[in-house]
């Protein structure tokens, strides 16, 4: 019992500290974009679960926008189109960078956190 409480207290403290660090990063990068992996690299000392929960909160409060970006399989890193949810991504879209229709797979899609304010 006391172990669990200790872990909870430690996690909450880490979460509070991480929130402050995240807010500082986003304040300096309004309009910028981050992937979950970018943030993991930026804050290597935090656990993924806490980071995920905090990002979810920041999305809910409108600080961040979570979008699903489909990338061109032909032009590395070239975004094709952004979607608000996974369900809205069609099976096939026009890859304007390559000039050809593409079948969308999970390999071509990444979650992006865009800093709104």
């Amino acid at each position, binding site marked *: 019992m006391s172990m669990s409480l200790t872990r909870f207290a430690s996690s909450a403290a880490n979460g509070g500290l991480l929130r402050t660090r995240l807010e500082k990063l986003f304040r300096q990068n309004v309009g910028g*974009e981050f992937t979950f992996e970018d943030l993991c690299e930026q804050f290597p000392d935090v656990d993924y679960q806490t980071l995920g929960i905090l990002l979810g909160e920041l999305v809910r409060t409108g600080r961040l926008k979570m979008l699903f*970006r489909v990338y*061109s399989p*032909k*032009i*590395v*890193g*070239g*975004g*094709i*189109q*952004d979607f608000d949810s996974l369900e809205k991504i069609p*099976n*096939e879209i*026009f890859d*304007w*960078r*390559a*000039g*050809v*229709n593409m*079948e969308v797979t999970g390999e071509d899609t990444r979650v*992006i956190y865009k800093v709104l304010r």
Partner: protein
Amino acid sequence: MNKGQEELALKSPPPSKTTLETIDAILEILKSATSLAVVSDFLKSRNLRFSAGSWDEMKQKRIIPAIRKQKITLADLKRLLAEAEEFGRSHIFLYKVPADQVTKFFDENNLRAIAKRAGLENVLDEPKVLVLPANPTLTEIRREDSKGNQSLILKIVESRNEQQLKDVKAEGDQILRTYVITKVRAVNVVRLHASGFLEMRLQSHANSTKYAADIVRIWTVIKEILPNRIFSEFSLGKVRKQLLGRRDELRKVVRFSDSVMRNSNGITISASTGEVQTDLFKDGGAAGDSIDTFLKSGARCDSTNVWWLPDNGESGRQIHCNLGGQDNEFAIPANCTRGEYEYVLNKIRVLSR
């Protein structure tokens, strides 16, 4: 008498069956190539009644009465069709030949003799309107003279199969993908300039980025008029190089979405934007510095996606253009007007000098 009364008081005979069939075919093609608004604008420019809520209404109430009253001709409709379907959504392959080797194509009698020998004199006089021909068909040979720039235009229409993914579902230990195959009309245009410059505009494929087989097929269809052996490829290497090298002075002309560079060691560097509206070089210089360093080491631009900005900074559309694929190839993936196409082509030709 107002326009409505005029239409009710028609005295001219109704158009012939052949004319009606041609109108049907033209409107059928226009329906997929453009919008009702474009046809309305065309009628409006002729000071004719132009409103229509559907394509059928446009045909019955606007086009047929206008033809019947000889306010417009079938040739006018064919010109409208040409404007609507000959520009954009295409991969353009450029060629050249010394001007003195093409003078015969710009002499009326010579051209007629060449067309007659090829059994194609009919399409020189009267373009064919084909919706989905069984084989690639040369439907039109025409000359244009724009501001003293003469050109010869050959139009080749063909049917193609395009496939679209309709459904993906798991059944037991199998994943089943269902594709719908649709027959589409493809319009390809070859334009030879009196200077010896030639554009081969191939309608974009939905499912492939390779056009080598199309090029061979089109040259084969037109070989009796324009033999490909006299032409050599017009390289766009210099254009890609100039675009990147002179990007600062061109920043009011062009915006970059991505560039792929390659050096002689086989090393490739790619720089891309995440979003369509972002400018690759507006990130504080980091992308530009990396590209410059790589280019200075002898690398060349392999492909790039750019957006040509409206002229003189006026509001208007940006035209997306891909410079990649073959050395003599560029693409305009979206539909565009003749003016927009000519603008982009002119910019490319200027940068190639």
